[in-house]
């Protein structure tokens, strides 16, 4: 079982340095561009945000929005209570969270590289006209 997982992880990630097939050896982690690393970090946080929003909104609305009588519904600024607390409020929280993500967490990095150094000449495609 342990060797199965070891093999699976190896298959999914980089190969060992000094591979017998150097032309097919995938690059090592420490050569990765900073944009790749920061993007991965940001994507993980975004995924967590999505999961949290999903869990709260769907959970809250499932508990408080279904099987209600009209007499039990309270209106808050025109919204039924379960809509107000389950959707409107988290939406406003996400607005603030998005601002924080954009201006406090997400990093600025150059997107342009020296194209020649990265092997743009390796492109075998038709000429751009």
């Amino acid at each position, binding site marked *: 079982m342990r060797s199965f997982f070891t093999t699976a992880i190896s298959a999914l990630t980089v190969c060992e340095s000094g591979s017998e097939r150097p032309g097919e050896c995938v690059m090592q982690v420490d*050569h990765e561009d900073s944009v790749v690393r920061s993007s991965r970090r940001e994507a993980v946080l975004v995924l967590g945000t*999505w999961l949290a929003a999903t869990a709260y909104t769907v959970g809250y609305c499932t508990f408080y929005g279904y099987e209600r009588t009209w007499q039990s519904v309270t209106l808050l600024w025109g919204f039924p209570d379960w809509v107000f607390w389950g959707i409107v409020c988290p939406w406003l929280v*996400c*607005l603030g969270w998005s601002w924080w993500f954009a201006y406090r967490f997400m990093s600025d*990095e150059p997107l342009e*590289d020296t194209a020649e150094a990265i092997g743009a000449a390796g492109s075998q495609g038709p000429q751009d006209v």
Partner: protein
Amino acid sequence: MSEYAQPVGYWTLSVLVVFLVASVWLATLAQRAMRKASFLQGYFLGNSGLGAWALALTATVQSGGTFMGYPSLIYTHGWVVSLWIASYMVVPITTFGVLAKRMAQLSRRTGAITVPDLFRERFASPAAGLISSLLIMFFMVFMIVAQFKAGASIMKVVWPVPPAGESAATGTSLDSLFLIGLALFTVTVVGYTMIGGFLAAVWTDLFQSVVMWIGVLLLLLLTLWHMGSFDVATQTAVQHTSAAFATAPGYAPDGREFLTPGLALSFFFVWVFGGVGSPATLVRLMACKDTRTIRRSVVLLSVYNVTIYLPLLLICVAARAVMPDLAVSDEVVPRMALWTTRDLWGGSLLAGLILVAPFGAVMATVSSYLVVIASGMVRDVYQRFVRPSATASELRWLTYATMVVVGVIAVAANLRPVAYLQAIIVFCGSSAAATFVVPALMATFWRRATAAGAVSAMLAGAATSLALLIAGSLLPDPMLGPATRFRSYYLFGLEPIVWGLLASLVFGVAVSAASRPPDGRIVERCFGTPPTD
């Protein structure tokens, strides 16, 4: 005559005509701007210079669904549609926070102009490029046909003819009005997109987004003015329908459950991954100017979404209160605009401004999809496989021809107008997401991803979505979701996108792991730190 089948003034139509003329003018400006670089780079990618406002307000491509399909559902089923749309609270952060930086970087590193281009270069696989291009065109054509119907329907609403009972006396039937609207819409949108390409689509989309935003807020204020309070709107709507209008799973006279908890969960996949994986969105991410633009776009789109989608809820609930027996629910926003402005001085003009909102959304969607389809045909099929040495002039004429042909197909398909606009939009958006999200994530974040894995992920996602659609069309109505014959099978009560993404992920990872590792030079090019000279 129903009190809300208002006769439309010529001012309303005039505003729409002015809007069309302004869009064409923007397209001519775009044509001049794109001349700086090569034809393909300028026409299909806008020279990678999209700023924050253009990126934020056009990336998620609000469509006819936003201003016709979504309002129609609110009008029909009530407050539960707020849960159906709720995932838009995280759409800005997911759209820009996951793929934007890497798509923009990879586009520059590989010289890719289109999404298939990027897959082709990233995986060094012409097959990956061709398959993705064909799938994009397939989904986009479905979407575009539905949008043409929406555009023509709006034109029909604003045409200044007598009310229904008198149409025979004038010799003008409403079907003829639909066809006239269809012709006008087609000529204008195809025309300005041909003139200005990607930038025309983006700039007119931006212009229309701003007009839409103003239109919705105006309509909100007018609705509040007429109703007095939105509490009254909900109370009156409930009187016309039942308590189900204010609770979940929503109101439906035939007893169907519009939104079960399983479907509510599913739509947190549909809108989020539908945004992330949309080809029209991906190409805009590729075209953004810099990371500062991406960060500003997150905030701009967040503000925009909350001020569009929540007001539309209030407006359409109020519409149910004041127009309880609307025959065609797709027309709720245009009808509400006409009703709220009927007694105002200059009301016809104001109604025109509000009506521009849904019309603009449809135009924006059509022009974006036209560019994506044309780029696929010209760059990813013709230039790559038929004539790599094609001249700029040849490519330009092929681009124009493709757009005209797509326009003709859309018109022909709408001679018998499609029904279920929103159902088609959800299907196409979900299927595109199931097809492209996983390969895009693999391309941008996973060094070990292979061409075989990416192609398998695309095909698995697309096949799963289509299989569930076919199953849903053949099986009896489960009385879940919207009432439409164009429906998918809800496996375990979930939308097909959930299963499509899962299948795409499983196949993408398994086939990548089982296939030969990618060439280290390709990986270095796409993931490596550029050497310092």
